[in-house]
């Protein structure tokens, strides 16, 4: 009995240590990077500026220091967007009380998804800014911004801009604008995995703050 107890204890401690190790390991930096002298310069989303449902300007600069999740959607989308929105709302609920986490949903149909319509949509979902920003801007600006986020999530055989943009991907960006993870926003399992990556990024931020 004592041998069995020790065996169970040993396995539990090993599993616990393994979990701790994998959780504290930093997430990779995605996208292209270059070497400058001894240091590596990682790709980062440099600049964008769009209005949210409260007509507040949300920029790359205003999100500095925040961990944020990005997706591209439109309200009238009859196919994948409702599932993506449902999963994004789960992330909203998970990180509701953590001001370090922000969600961004860019509309692909600004002609219909005007700021008042986005506001009504957010209200109907029971969510609000600044936690979840539904972003509005000129169509050409949105289409030019999307590849900046989806550079690492796009499949090599994707050639259609709209296919890439409306791919259902959720992209995780760190406080410095670096792309750190992404997932299929239509898959519940993948979104849970992304939530673990958010936790790892938050741990990273906490550890950096203590150093």
């Amino acid at each position: 009995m004592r041998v069995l107890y020790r065996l169970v204890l040993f396995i539990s401690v090993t599993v616990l240590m393994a979990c701790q190790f994998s959780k504290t390991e930093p997430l990779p930096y995605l996208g292209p990077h270059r070497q400058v002298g001894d240091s590596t310069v990682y790709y980062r989303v440099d600049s964008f500026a769009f209005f949210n449902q409260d007509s507040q300007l949300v920029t790359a600069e205003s999100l500095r220091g925040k961990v944020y999740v990005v997706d591209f959607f439109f309200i009238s989308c009859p196919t994948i967007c409702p599932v993506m929105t449902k999963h994004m709302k789960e992330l909203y609920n998970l990180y509701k009380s953590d001001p370090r986490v922000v969600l961004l949903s860019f509309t692909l149909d600004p002609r219909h998804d005007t700021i008042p319509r986005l506001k009504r949509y957010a209200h109907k979902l029971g969510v609000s800014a600044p936690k979840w920003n539904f972003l509005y801007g000129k169509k050409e600006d949105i289409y030019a911004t999307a590849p900046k986020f989806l550079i690492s999530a796009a499949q090599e055989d994707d050639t259609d801009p709209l296919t890439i943009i409306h791919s259902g991907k959720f992209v995780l960006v760190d406080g410095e604008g670096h792309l750190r993870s992404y997932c299929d926003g239509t898959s519940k399992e993948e979104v849970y995995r992304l939530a673990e990556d958010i936790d790892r990024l938050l741990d990273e931020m906490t550890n950096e703050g203590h150093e």
Partner: protein
Amino acid sequence: MAVHDSAMAKMGAIERAIQTLQHIKETEHKSTDVKSRIDSSILLLKRADEAMWDWMYHFKQKGDWSGKGTYLSYLQSEERKIQRVATLIDSALQRASQYTNKEK
């Protein structure tokens, strides 16, 4: 919804064709007549694009629908509308291809 999915898959091609035509117009020496035909081709692509977004905007899922008759008859009438949008997309792409194919 199958007609919608098939037409939606061509929306990326519309965006790409608009960009290619604008590039041709700005960079190549074309007569005023050709430039004006390119402009009308771009306009047709934009109309096809807008028709698709408009159809999705107006389309009602069963839960949101409250019209006359049955939902099935509504779906049949929407099928005819989306079929027209699909035809518009095909003809806009077809017309643009006389310029974009030369680019390849």
